[in-house]
């Protein structure tokens, strides 16, 4: 049975076209698997990353239940101390070269608001020397009870990590 259809091109032209299609496919994959390069920062930029997770103090102090309150509770729930689980909001402020960079109020995590407060921010700054001051309050009163101030010299591309780990003395500025 004769078959017809698209008129075939001469063999050399067909091979050339096949090379073109396969070459185009190969080039597309080869190029877009690595290019174009994506700019992550400016020529003279450094990066400041702020990240910590911290459980603040309890919002309300424990108190003793009186006899009447204890009576209202189920027998197995009659503990003398009533300790609400909710934690205080963490207040955080950071200044860079005397100018405010962050002023955050971080609510406690968890459904019962009894978990740690967490934050992550990143920002570009010009490379060079900067004076960084950070302070934090984890008290219900909001009074700042942790602080640190330091002068850091940041090279282009260098990352300064501002962390807060009370067990290691509070604020930690890491850049290498």
């Amino acid at each position: 049975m004769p078959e017809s259809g698209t008129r075939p091109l001469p063999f050399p032209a067909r091979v050339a076209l096949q090379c073109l299609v396969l070459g185009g496919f190969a080039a597309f994959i080869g190029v877009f698997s690595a290019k174009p390069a994506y700019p992550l920062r400016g020529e003279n930029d450094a990066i400041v990353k702020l990240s910590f997770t911290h459980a603040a103090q309890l919002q309300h102090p424990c108190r003793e239940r009186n006899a009447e309150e204890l009576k209202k509770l189920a027998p197995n729930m009659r503990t003398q101390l009533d300790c609400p689980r909710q934690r205080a909001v963490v207040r955080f402020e950071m200044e860079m070269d005397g100018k405010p960079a962050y002023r955050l109020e971080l609510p406690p995590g968890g459904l019962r608001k009894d978990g740690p407060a967490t934050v992550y921010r990143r920002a570009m700054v010009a490379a060079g020397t900067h004076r960084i001051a950070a302070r934090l309050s984890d008290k219900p009163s909001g009074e700042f009870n942790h602080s640190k101030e330091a002068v850091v010299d940041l090279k282009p591309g260098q990352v300064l990590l501002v962390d807060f780990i009370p067990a290691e003395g509070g604020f930690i500025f890491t850049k290498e």
Partner: protein
Amino acid sequence: MATPCLRSRADRVIDAAIARAFAAPYNPWRQLGALTSLALAITVASGIVAYALYDTSISGAYQSGLRLQNDPSYFGVLLRGLHRYGADAFMLLMILHLLREFLRSHYRGPRWYSWLSGVPLIWLGWLAGLTGLWLLWDSRALHSVMATAEWLQALPLVDEGLVRNFLASGALNDRFFSLVMFLHIGVPLFLIGGLWAHLQRIHLPAVWPRRAAGVGLLLTLGVVSLLAPAQSLGMADPHFVPKAISLDWFFQLPHVLTDSLSGAGTWAVAGGLTLLCASLPWLDRGRRKPAPARVELIHCNGCSRCAADCPFGAIRMVPRTDGGMHAQQAAVDDELCVACGICVGACPSSTPFRRIEDLVSGIELPEQPIGRLRQTLREVLKSRAPGSMVLVCRCRHSPGGSQAPDPSMLSIEVECLGMLPPSFLDFALRQGLAGAVLAGCEGGNCEFRLGDRWTLDRIAGRRAPRLRRNVARERIISLARQDDEASIRNAVDELLRHPMHDQPGDAR
């Protein structure tokens, strides 16, 4: 959204352009699904070997990549390239496959299942590739991990502390790479399971491409691997951000979106596109669904040819319900039937040589009964001299221009060429037609997947119902209507120019 007409025209333009280079069965545009599965197979096979050479530790992960890329025997370079570029090709081919099926409106009606089940595969393929990039633990991997963490943190239930795992040098341990490896192996397993589900409603799916097309893909990936070796960047350092980074855009595009739109914005774009894709079968239902095939029990002998030929598995053979002498009967699942009529062409009862006055097949398309076709042939041929006319059978879905009335052509239009029983060609030639031109979709481009293949196989005698052996094959011209009516006209003229050797009624 572009109208279906514009979209199908775009598909034809692309197809025709590629068809200039590749003969019909090898046209890669027509086997994108199969090429996608081959790209996955290449990626998985090279990945299994690469896994044997990989060290899942912080220092070892980066060194593993370097060892392969610096292998003096080039085995490592080829292996790494095939794995990396195979994954890129998988994503690209999958998107092209999606695009082609969209252009052809192959999400409507019973095809909704294949369309919908394909949508999650994009996510799984993307995740499998992304986790592979992390395993190299170079600066691209670190950027990708952090960007993904930032993106995930935009979700309401994900803690902002996720990214802390990657901020300091000591934050990670070797278990991270075991976890990523678990994901990198586990996700493709889900992907393969998803592919199995994706093909469930397709009868005889083309899982693998034609050998030549497959070899072409493998060679192409091999050449790219050697010419542009996949390379690691500098080792991941959380305290340094390079000025620019080389991204694998097939997998890392969401990172750029997260940077420019925010995490929530990227979720909105990705989620919106996914939702739009998934709901397309219901948003664009198209024209009224044609009535599904109907079994005419009295004419069905339970031969099961219709079930064997149905491209979508819409026909099952079930025990006889009418107490007839045959053990089985065909049963059509209306939800799966696309009303292509290929089952009608497969039915031995569709032969026009039957003596009953009103020809009825064992399985019929209610909107295009086979008896009407025989009636048309008989009526037209009553008033025509033998050899003065050619039967032109056109597929409704194949491309082609408008047909002008022509006294030398007896034109009929069918849903798919596979609907035409081969005995009709025999019948038409014996009734005095000079020949037959079958104008359908080009090889591998059938709207209903298998119509062109079954038609050619039946005429060549490779598949039942076979065209009788002594029917003059040179009187039948199979024509892919890629261009216009001119090719049909030429075929008709050619058949009219050469007189038949057999006279009507002599063929037997």
